């Protein structure tokens, strides 16, 4: 299978100033040399505790933070992202319909009628109904909002979807529904997914392969069954024992 994304020796550090005028700059190394790849049609789980650098990996891949190292995506491949907090990632002052239409416009659909039709098609694709186009994000439940976010992410026609804790803010039953939706979409559109979570339980049935991150270093990598039954790193054992 072809690699769709290859990350080699990825390092990210943040500089922040402490103290006022006579203070100094502190450098915080968040990612300390990360290498991994995602293959075509694969779901890769990225697990680690909060603050381990998971979101930073996602941002680096999408060029939203400065980094060193190589990130290679196959030519012409687009990546989309679903953000951690479905509340903040939808503009509160726009109806779902215009959010989707704006995404379509930005993806190059300049015909207004076609935008409307495609927005309707997308809202149905992510398991909502036509009436939801007329709602504001604030009028939707967490699960419905996340469905809209998924729809927005699909509009540019991505081959790689980065989902940053897409279900962490949801109830367990809703989590299962969203995971099922993602799995279906992955089949329909032939997506590769980088699935980020702090919870090993969520990843187990969902991912083809997983990597475990601790303080900016990958400590374990493998298929879920193998990682669960025969963890190599102490940190993984720790994570497993807390389930």
């Amino acid at each position: 299978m072809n690699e769709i994304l290859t990350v080699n020796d990825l390092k990210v550090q943040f500089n922040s100033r402490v103290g006022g005028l006579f203070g100094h700059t502190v450098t915080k190394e968040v990612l300390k040399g990360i290498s991994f790849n995602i293959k075509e049609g694969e779901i890769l789980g990225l697990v680690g505790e909060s603050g381990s650098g998971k979101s930073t990996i996602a941002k680096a891949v999408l060029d939203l933070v400065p980094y060193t190292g190589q990130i290679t995506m196959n030519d012409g491949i687009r990546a989309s992202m679903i953000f951690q907090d479905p509340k903040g990632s939808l503009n509160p002052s726009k109806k779902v319909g215009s959010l989707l239409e704006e995404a379509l416009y930005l993806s190059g659909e300049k015909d207004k009628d076609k935008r409307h039709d495609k927005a309707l098609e997308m809202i149905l694709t992510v398991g909502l109904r036509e009436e939801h186009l007329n709602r504001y994000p604030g009028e939707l439940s967490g699960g419905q909002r996340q469905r809209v976010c998924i729809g927005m992410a699909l509009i540019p026609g991505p081959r790689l979807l980065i989902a940053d804790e897409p279900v962490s803010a949801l109830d367990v039953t809703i989590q299962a529904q969203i995971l099922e939706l993602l799995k279906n979409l992955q089949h329909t559109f032939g997506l590769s997914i980088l699935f980020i979570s702090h919870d090993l339980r969520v990843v187990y049935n969902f991912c083809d392969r997983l990597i475990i991150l601790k303080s900016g270093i990958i400590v374990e990598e493998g298929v879920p069954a193998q990682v669960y039954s025969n963890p190599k790193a102490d940190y993984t054992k720790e994570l497993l024992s807390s389930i």
Partner: protein
Amino acid sequence: MKTNKKNFNFILGIGIIIFMVLFVFLGRILPLRDANAIDATLKFAPPSLKHPFGCDNFGREILSRVIQGSFSTFCIALGTVFIGTFFGIIIGALTGYFGGLVDEILMRINDAIFAFPSILLALLFISLLGPGTYQVVIALGIAFIPSFARIVRGEFLKNRNMDYVKCAKLLGASDLRIMVIHILPNTLKVLLNSVLIGFNNAVLAEASMSFLGIGVQPPDPSLGRMLSEAQGFLFKAPNYALFPGLAIILMVLGFGLLSDSFEK
């Protein structure tokens, strides 16, 4: 605040504003005497059926003058708030969104200007521009820019790091598009509130400036001018000061109640 009380404020505020607007526009349609027409025989005529608000020291119709004056005051306040909001949005959006050195410089200038009371600042501009109605609009408008810029900047600063903005960026939206189409609508609620408060301040500032004789020029009426002219006749003709005073109070009260009802 409780919703009930907010609704009450909203209804009362809207009611007062509608009343004032009707008062001004009906007054301009009805065949009243010209606001500047002098008639020596009517000097200090008390309120009566024929002259509901009475007449002033030149025998001019106070009703016509209050209507005309309210209209000028209203227009001046509108112009002032428009200038303040328009440039305030541009400056606030650019500084809040881009940050950096431009932000630092503009905001330090802003703070320096903001440190002066806007009426004092307006007086300073008037001393450069000369007295007159348009000059007052420009002077007050400029003096109002910093407070609007500050509010808009705060909102843009808050919004620019939110995920929905990153989302739009990933989809390829330009900075201008993000500022105008994505962020600006989210600042409108806060902006509306400050527009209403700004409107109040503008009404009061115009009244003070005309009171000091540097706003609307005689013989044209403005509410502030009328108050200032009525000063000498407070005991002789209390109606002369009462009605323009009442008009100012109603205008300020109406917009004040409305802005209260929009507060979070």
